[in-house]
C-alpha cells in the first residue's frame, strides 16, 4: 500500500537492527510484541524514521500499542506528513 515508506524501513530493520540483510520482513509481521526489535533498537528505528521521513515520533509512542508492524508504522508516518 505504501511501499515507498515500508521498503526503506524494512531494509533498515533487516540490515542495521537484525544484521540479516537478506531477511524479508512482511508488512504485517509483528515487530515489537514478537521480540524481533528490542527496546534498545526501537530508539534506532525512531531516529531513522525521523531523519528519513521528516516526522517526529515521541518517546511515549515507542511501544507495541502505537505500532507493531510496518503497515501500522506507515499509517503513523503518513498521518504526520
Amino acid at each position: 500500500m505504501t511501499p515507498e515508506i515500508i521498503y526503506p524501513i524494512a531494509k533498515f530493520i533487516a540490515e542495521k537492527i537484525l544484521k540479516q540483510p537478506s531477511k524479508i520482513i512482511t508488512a504485517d509481521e509483528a515487530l515489537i510484541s514478537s521480540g524481533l526489535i528490542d527496546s534498545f533498537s526501537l530508539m534506532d528505528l525512531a531516529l531513522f524514521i525521523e531523519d528519513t521521513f521528516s516526522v517526529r515520533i515521541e518517546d511515549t509512542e515507542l511501544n507495541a500499542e502505537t505500532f507493531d508492524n510496518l503497515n501500522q508504522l506507515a499509517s503513523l508516518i503518513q498521518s504526520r506528513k
Partner: protein
Amino acid sequence: MIDHELLVHRLWSIVHRPLMTTLPNLLQRSYQEIPDKTSIILQHAGQPDKPITYRDLIHGANRFALTYAREGIKPGEVVILILQHGEDLIYSFWGAILHGAIPSIMPFLTEKLAPEKYRADLASLISITKPTTIVTYPEFEAEVRSALVEGNSVRHVILTSTVEAEAEPNFESLQGFKSSPEDIVVLQHSSGTTGLQKGVALSHRAVLNQLESYGKTIHIDPEKDVIVSWLPLYHDMGFIACFLLPVLLRIPLVNMSPFDWVRAPYKLHQAISQYKGTLTWLPNFAYNFCAHKIRERNLEGVNLSSWRAIINCSEPVHVESHDLFFEKFSAYGLKKSALQTCYAMAENVFAVTQSPLDGTPAVDEIDRETFMTQRLATPPIAGQPSMKMTSSGHPLPNTKIRVVDESFNDLPNRSVGEIAVQSDCMLTEYFNRPDATEAAIKNGWYLTGDYGYIANGELYVSGRKKDLIIVGGKNVYPQDLESLACEVLGVHKGRTVAFGMYDEEEGTEEVVIIAEAESTSPSEQEAIADAIRKHVTKSSAIALRHVKVVDDKWIIKTSSGKTARSANKEKFLKELEIN
C-alpha cells in the same frame, strides 16, 4: 564549613556502629530526625514527579510490615517482590526490612519475555530460595499462581490491593528491630535460570560496612549530593548504589523507570539539570547509547555542571565510551572529571574498587602481543599494535584484592590472573546453596571469576574466566541460551554454543549463537536461524545479533564432551574475517 563537616561526621557515626546497627535502626533514626527530608523523587513518564519524604517512606513501609504480620510471615522468611518501578515496590521492600523478613526483588514480566519462560524462571527461583511469600499486583496474581506447584514453599501471595491502612509505626512491635547485624537482610539474584538459582545473601553488617566504606571513598555528602538513576532495582548497581545507599545515607534519589529511560535517554540529563544531580551509575553501553541517541532538541537549557561523578560499572569499561559521552555533552557543562569507573559485584555487596574522583581514571597502554600470548601487561613497543586498558581504580579501604594463578598463588604486578576479593562486606553465602558457596570462597577469599592485573596499586579488569556474557550491564549465562537454542526443532541436541562479542558502536557485548542443524539445505538452515532468534529472545529477553546455523561437526567440543566456548568463538571470528 565546620557545621557541614560535623554533619558528615555525624552521618558516619550513625552508620558505623559495629555490633549494634541494623537497617531498621537507621530507618527509625531518619524517621525521627529528618521526617520531612525528601528521600526519593519518583519519576514516571507522563506524570508529575512524586516526592517521598522519610515520613512517607516509613509510613508506606509500615503498611506492608503490618500486612506481613497479619499474614503470619515470620522474620527470616524470604519475600519475593514481583512489582514494577513505583511506590509499591519501594514500600513492600522497606516493609519487609521493618518486619525482619528477607526481601528479594524479581524482575517483572516484560512484553519481550514469553510468560511460560517467566513462570519457569520463577519456579526455578522458588525451588532453591524457598520463599514463603510473593508480593504482586492483583492483575498479576494468576501469572504468579500458575508458577506454584503443590507442596512448594510459597504459603502467601500478597496483593497490593490488600495492604493494611496507614498507621503510625510502632517501633516497639516491629519484628525487624530484633534482627542482629549478622542476620541476612536481603537476597540479590542475577537473571536467567542459572542466575535465579544463586541468591547472594547479605547481612546487615555487610551492607552497612559497604555503604560506609564506599560512601567515604566517593565523598558522599547528604547536604549536597543528589543521586539520579534509571537502573532497575533487581540488579546490584541499581539496588545498592542507587537505592540502599541513598535511602540509608540520606541522599536524595531521583528514580526513573528503566523502560522510560530506554525510550527517552535524555530524561536522565534533564533530571540531572532539574534536580542538580551529582551522582549516577551507568553500565558502559549507556555512555554510547546516550551519545548516539540523544537529540539536541531534548537538551535545550540543560545544565550538567552539577554532575560530579558518572560511574561506569557492571560491564567492561571502555575509555572510548567515556570520550564519546564527553564530546557529546561537554557543551552542556559536563566536566571531564565526572567520568569515573568502578569494579563491583553483588558478592561484595557492591563496589570492590573505585577510581579516585579528583581526576580521570588512569589509562594503561600495553603491548597487545605480550598481553595475548604471555598474559603480561607490558609497555607498548614502537611500531607494534598496542591496546588501552582503563583502570577500575583502587580497592575500597575495607577491601583487599589479590591476583592469583590457578593454584591460588599471588602473581606479580602486571601479570594477568584471577581477581580474588576479601573484605568485611562479603556475602554470607549463596542462599541454600552450600555447594556454590564452597566453590566460590577459598580461605576467606571470594574468587570472582574475572581476570585482571594490578599496576600502580590500581586494578585493571581484562576478561572473564567464567563463561558469562554481559549485555547492557545484564549478566547472561551462555548455558541458559544454549539450552534454549537446543529446544528449536531441527537443531542437534547438545550442539549449540553461545558467547559474547564486543561491539564498539554499542559499547557492550552482543550475543552470538551457533547451532548445528540436522539439515544442510541453506534455506532450511536460514529458517532454523530465524526460529532460534525468536525462541531465544522470547525466552530470555535477550536480543541476538548473530545466529549462525552450521553443518554437523562445526562446533568444537573438549575431550570430555563439553562445549569449548572460547575455541568456538575464535573459530567464528576467523570465519568472519575470511568472509
